[in-house]
């Protein structure tokens, strides 16, 4: 017989009890619940994002976090509804003194919420930081900028190596930071409590759980219609739907097509906005089989973008026939229209093999899109192989020129300038480098040297026609549609195609 001494069993029971008590103790802990703050009109607007925002330092931060920092910080130049620069922001005027010199006027008497002056020196410092910081995602935008000076409190002079008409456009995505505070706190410290000139000021954060901003009482512009915003996040789309359905949040961003449809069916108001994010099929003209122009044309004619949008996205995407039409709603005059019969004729009987490479799970329904593109090519007589890679590996291979055939991925511009796509995809030294052609390089440079966007537009049209319609190096597929849902009674959310949101008019 073996019965343990009762002291042992008491110890083990005590251990189990301690576990249970500890759990009850910690369970009772916890701060105030943002989601339980109720729908009173004075409570902050509760905005639900798809992920925790990355660093709130706009100099090094991913643009996905812009939705949060842009409540406190302001871009140097505002944009209008058509994404064109306007004089309503921090920089109120800009002139091209000569072909390579830009002079900007800074709005007078503006201060950061910590009291620092938001003057020309602050503007020059921000542009310099953006250009010179190694981890700045916008660094390459300002590679042509040779000097940034603030000769007086109200003037900033920017000089470029070669003429560049779109400098004001680029400044629409540069957010002003206070020089002293930024230097004193460093990137990590600034991100922990950002200071800007915007309509809201930092109110605090619970690590991993929420970020709050409150109305800036000293804001230079029109005061926000709400007291503040509390941002929370949920990675899972079904959870974002459940939280808006259960009225735990006021706005739920980034609902994929399935959840947007489900939300609408459940009576939730869903807003769908065409974004500037374009999904494109890139044909590598430097390697077989697409070093043969006839086969590139065949592939371009085989792919039916309208069928993809209708069949896969059920209206949650917009067919897009151009590469350089940056603004949503625009379509180029010259387009390639699907013609499967002609595609089959061009392929003939050889059955050339095409590899389709795409980033796994990076974009909504990308697997299905790749399959649809492959199906169209097979119908035209191609033999298709698929390769699904993680996004980082795909980009690495594209940079290394190791992706033959077709690669499918997105262009996500931060600013509405065609040069974003030209420099990224069309030049010989671009990211994809899939269509090297001295003509394209020369036209790209010529476009930038024009006086303004209007004069550059015909050159971009020409570039688009050469790349898409004549050489068939690019098969634009569709533009992503962004969906967000609002709780009953919530209005005034203004979502921009470049992932910007204006909450100042939002009420509940």
């Amino acid at each position, binding site marked *: 017989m073996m019965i343990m001494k009762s002291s*042992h069993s008491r110890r083990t029971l005590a251990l189990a009890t301690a576990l249970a008590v500890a759990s009850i103790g910690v*369970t009772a802990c916890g701060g105030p619940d943002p*989601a339980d703050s109720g729908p009173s009109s004075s409570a902050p607007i509760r905005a639900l994002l798809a992920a925790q925002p990355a660093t709130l330092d706009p100099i090094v931060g*991913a643009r996905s976090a812009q939705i949060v920092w842009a409540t406190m910080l302001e871009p140097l130049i505002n944009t209008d509804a058509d994404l064109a620069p306007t004089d309503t922001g921090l920089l109120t005027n800009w002139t091209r003194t000569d072909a390579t010199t830009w002079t900007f006027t800074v709005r007078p008497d503006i201060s950061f919420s910590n009291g620092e002056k938001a003057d020309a020196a602050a503007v020059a410092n921000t542009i310099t930081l953006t250009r010179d910081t190694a981890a700045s995602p916008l660094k390459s935008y300002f590679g042509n900028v040779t000097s940034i000076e603030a000769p007086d409190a109200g003037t900033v002079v920017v000089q470029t190596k070669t003429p560049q008409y779109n400098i004001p456009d680029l400044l629409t995505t540069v957010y002003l930071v206070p020089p002293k505070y930024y230097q004193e706190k460093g990137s990590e410290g600034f*991100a922990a409590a950002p200071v800007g000139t915007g309509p809201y000021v930092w109110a605090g954060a619970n690590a991993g759980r929420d970020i709050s901003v409150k109305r800036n009482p000293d804001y230079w512009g029109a005061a926000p219609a709400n007291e503040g915003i509390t941002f929370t996040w949920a990675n899972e789309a079904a*959870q974002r739907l459940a939280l808006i359905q259960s009225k735990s949040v006021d706005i739920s961003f980034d609902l994929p097509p399935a959840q947007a449809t489900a939300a609408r069916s459940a009576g939730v108001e869903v807003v769908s906005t065409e974004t500037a994010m374009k999904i494109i099929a890139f044909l590598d003209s430097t390697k077989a089989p697409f070093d043969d122009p006839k086969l590139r044309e065949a592939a371009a004619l085989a792919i039916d973008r309208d069928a993809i949008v209708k069949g896969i996205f059920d209206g949650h995407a917009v067919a897009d026939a151009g590469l350089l039409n940056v603004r949503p709603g625009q379509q180029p005059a010259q387009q390639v229209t699907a013609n499967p019969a002609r595609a089959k004729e061009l392929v003939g009987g050889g059955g050339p093999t095409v590899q389709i490479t795409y980033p796994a799970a990076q974009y909504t329904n990308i697997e299905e899109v790749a399959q649809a593109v492959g199906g169209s090519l097979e119908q035209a007589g191609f033999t298709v192989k698929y390769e699904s890679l*993680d996004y*980082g590996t795909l980009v*690495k291979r594209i940079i290394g020129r190791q992706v033959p055939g077709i690669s499918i991925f997105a262009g996500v511009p931060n600013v509405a300038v065609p040069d974003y796509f030209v420099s990224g995809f069309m030049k010989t030294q671009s990211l994809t480098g899939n269509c090297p052609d001295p003509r394209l390089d020369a036209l790209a440079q010529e476009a930038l040297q024009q006086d303004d966007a209007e004069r550059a537009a015909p050159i971009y049209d020409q570039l688009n026609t050469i790349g898409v319609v004549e050489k068939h190096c690019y098969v634009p597929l569709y533009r992503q549609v962004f969906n967000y849902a609002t709780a009953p009674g919530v209005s005034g959310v203004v979502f921009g195609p470049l992932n910007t949101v204006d909450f100042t008019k939002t009420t509940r």
Partner: protein
Amino acid sequence: MKASTVRRVGGRLASLFASLLIALSLAFVLGRLSGDPTTTILGPMAPPEQRAALRHELGLDLPLVVQYLDYLKGVLTGDLGQSLQFYQSNTSMIADRLPYTLQLVAAGMSLALLVGVPLGVLAATREGTRWDRAASTLALLGQSVPVFWFGMMLVVLFAVKLGWLPAGQSGTPKHLVLPALTMSVYPMAHIARLTRASMSEALAEPYIDSARARGIAGWRIVWRHAFKNAMMPILTIVVLQTGILLSGAVAVEYVYSWPGLGQLALQAIQFRDFPLVQAIVVFGALVFVLLNLLVDLVHSIVDPRVR
């Protein structure tokens, strides 16, 4: 202390250290295989020279051996590096998120114990009856049902349809109910099945017959004689399950947007923030190794034969 005990403890510690080193090395290698982080930070359009400058700033241009030794040195000094997306110290981020995960695991495990043990004892003491079959079916279901699906069903029922509980996020005890319930299902089923098996074995021992012959009350035989002898494997599994839950809370935290380590790990993976992924893996491995040590300690406390 006897020499044999010292040898055994030394051997155990050496084996735990080796496990930790393997985990650290795997985390390092997998981090390096996960693609170029400069793509994530700078976007695909950044020119090669900017990528090279950033790689240099991050120390990614150093030979792998040097990077590995720096990494081990960092781990030893408690410096787990800096996140590529949040630009914060990984150690402080883990420290911020850990209380949430501990809260969830403690609540889930308590629930699992409070339900699993009585369920297992019930099944063992009523072997072959409807109670036994019902308890076993429940345990089987608990082990088979996918956590993700179960969590979503609870959300739909209790948050969306009935509106009784929050659909997710954290803050109040109410927020903990559904995640803890979801978290408890698998360990509860495991504990129930193990308790049943262990108790059945204990109840078949001759000392139980002897206790019955002496007229000791039934509940006393079950809980004071049989259960305390059946407890050792249950305790072991509770501690090990706690380790698994601590490092595997990803699904539950994802479903409920619970701000713990699991969700942090998931976002780090999605962003290819390999220093943060590495840090979380290192932390998980450390916790698991320490819990294994705890199992050994508990064994030696509860069972004198192990000392």
